[in-house]
C-alpha cells in the first residue's frame, strides 16, 4: 500500500477523531479514500488521538496534579482524552487558549462522560472538582478589606458570602484520596465511599483558601445564600413560617462565626 496514502489517512483521522468514529461506524467510507478499512486499527488510532490530546493538556498538571496521577494509576488517561478529543472534533471546537479555560472545559466534559456508578469514575469526579475549586479560588485576586458586618442574625438579616465560596457534594473525601495517591502504590479499594459536603472558601481580603466540611443544613444554606434572601425568606422556604426556628438561627450564627457569611439588615 502506498505509504503517502496511508500517512494521509492516519493524519486525517488523528486530526479529526470524529472522522475516525464515522469510519468505525461506516467502514465503507474509507474505501472512498482508496484504502481497505480492514487493514486499519481504527480503535488504536482513536486511542493515539487520546494520547496526543493528553499531551496537549500537560499544562493542566500544574493545577490538577492529583487528578492526572489518578487518571494514570486508574488507567483512565487514554480513554478520557480519546473521548474528549472526539468531542472537540465533533463540535469543531478548538481547545481553549488558557489553562484556566481548559480546566473548565474538561470538567464540563467529564460531568457528561463519567459514569457515576463506576467507583473510579466517581473518584475522578470528586478529585477534579476538588482541585479545580482550589485552583479557581487561588487565582482570585484578594479584594480590599472586608466591611464590618453583623454576625448575629435576626429574621430581617440578609446573609451574604464573605468572599468567595465553591460548594461540592462528594461521594468520597478527595483529601483522603489525595493522601492515598501520594503513597508508593495506590489501591482504589482503600477509598471509603462517604458523602462529604465541602465548602472551598476564600475570604474576600484573604490569600488562603480554606476547606470547610459542612453538615447538610449548613451546605444547603450556603448554596442558597444569594445576598438577597433574608433569614425570614429561608425560614418560609423551610417550614412555611417567617419567624425563623432556633436551629436555623443557630446554623446561620455558626456560619457567621466561621466568617463565611455576614449579615446586612433588610430595609424595613
Amino acid at each position, binding site marked *: 500500500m502506498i505509504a503517502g496514502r*496511508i*500517512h494521509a489517512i492516519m493524519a486525517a483521522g488523528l486530526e479529526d477523531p470524529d472522522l475516525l468514529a464515522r469510519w468505525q461506524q461506516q467502514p465503507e467510507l474509507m474505501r472512498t479514500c482508496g484504502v481497505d478499512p480492514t487493514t486499519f*486499527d481504527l480503535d*488504536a488510532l482513536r486511542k493515539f488521538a487520546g494520547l496526543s490530546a493528553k499531551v496537549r493538556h500537560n499544562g493542566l498538571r500544574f493545577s490538577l496534579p492529583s487528578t492526572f496521577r489518578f487518571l494514570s494509576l486508574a488507567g483512565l488517561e487514554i480513554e478520557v482524552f480519546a473521548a474528549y478529543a472526539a468531542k472537540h472534533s465533533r463540535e469543531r471546537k478548538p481547545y481553549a487558549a488558557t489553562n484556566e479555560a481548559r480546566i473548565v472545559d474538561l470538567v464540563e466534559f467529564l460531568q457528561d462522560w463519567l459514569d457515576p456508578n463506576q467507583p473510579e469514575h466517581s473518584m475522578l469526579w470528586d478529585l477534579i472538582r476538588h482541585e479545580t475549586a482550589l485552583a479557581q479560588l487561588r487565582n482570585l485576586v484578594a479584594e480590599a478589606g472586608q466591611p464590618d458586618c453583623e454576625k448575629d442574625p435576626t429574621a430581617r438579616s440578609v446573609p451574604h458570602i464573605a468572599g468567595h465560596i465553591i460548594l461540592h457534594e462528594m461521594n468520597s473525601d478527595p483529601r483522603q484520596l489525595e493522601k492515598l495517591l501520594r503513597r508508593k502504590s495506590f489501591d482504589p479499594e482503600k477509598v471509603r465511599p462517604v458523602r462529604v459536603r465541602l465548602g472551598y472558601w476564600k475570604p474576600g481580603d484573604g490569600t488562603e483558601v480554606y476547606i470547610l466540611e459542612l453538615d447538610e443544613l449548613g451546605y444547603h444554606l450556603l448554596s442558597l445564600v444569594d445576598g438577597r434572601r433574608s433569614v425570614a425568606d429561608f425560614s418560609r422556604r423551610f417550614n412555611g413560617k417567617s419567624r425563623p426556628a432556633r436551629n436555623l438561627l443557630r446554623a446561620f450564627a455558626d456560619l457567621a462565626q466561621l466568617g463565611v457569611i455576614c449579615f446586612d439588615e433588610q430595609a424595613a
Partner: protein
Amino acid sequence: MKYVDAHSREVAVGLALGPIVPEFVSANPDLIDYVEIPFEQLRHSPEAGSIQQSLPVILHCASMSVAGFVPADQETLNAIKREAERTRTPWIGEHLAFISAEAIDNDKGEPTKPTSLTYTVCPQMSEETVERVTDNLAALQTLFNVPLILENSPQYFHVPGSSLSMVDFVTAVIERSGAGLLLDLTHFLISMLNTRKDATHEIERLPLEQVVEVHISGLSVQSGIAWDDHASPAPPEVFDLLERVLARVRPRAVTLEYNWSPHFPESVVFRHIDQIHQIVRS
C-alpha cells in the same frame, strides 16, 4: 552562554527541558552536563533558551517530518538552522516519523493544505518509506552544519502496508542514510511490548555502533497498549536495556525525558541520574 564540548569523550548526562528543569539546574548546577530543548519550544517561547546561560544545549526537533511525504516548509527549516547555529548544538535529534501528510481529498485535483499534526507519528515501515527517509535526510542534511540524527518512534499499532519490523526498519534507514541513531529506549521497549517481541533480544539487532544519544522516559500501559509517558519514571527494564547498549557502545549523551509534569519527583531524577552514571562507569 555555555556550549557542548564537541571533543569530549565522556558520556554526557542531561535532562530534557520541562517544568522541573530550571529549578533543578539552579539548585544542582553540576549534576547534569546539558539540557535538551525542542526547537518547537524555542520557537514559541524563545525565553526557554535562557537556560543556556547555565548549561549547554542540545537541540531536539519534531518538525522536519523526515519519514513523511510532505516536505517541511522552508521557513521552519530556516528557523531550525538559526537555532542550531545559535545554540551550537553538536547534532540535531529528529524523530524518525511524520508530522504532516497529504490531505485525503487531494485526489479531486483541488489544492488543499496538507494535514499538520502536533505530534509525530510512527510511519509505515516499508522499503518505500526507507527510501523516502534516505532522500529526505540527504536533502535536509545539506542545510545544517551539524549532523541530523534519527530517533526511533514508539510503535503503538500496526501501520497498514508495513513490511518491516521496527528493528529492521530502523536498521535499514540508519544503514542506508548513514545517519546517527538517537535511541529512545522507552520508545523501543514500547514497540517491543506492543508487537510482543523480546526487547533484550531485539536490541542486539539494532545498529548500536551508530548510537549517538540515548533517551530515557517512563511508559504506561493503558487500554491494552503501552504508551510513552514523560510524567512517570522509567521502569527497570529501560535501565536493563541501557546496560546492554553501554556494554557494547559509548554514546555521546544520555537524556532523561521527565518533561511533562511540574510535580515529577526530584528524588527520582537524582536516583536515575546516579543510576546512569553508575551504568556508564561499570
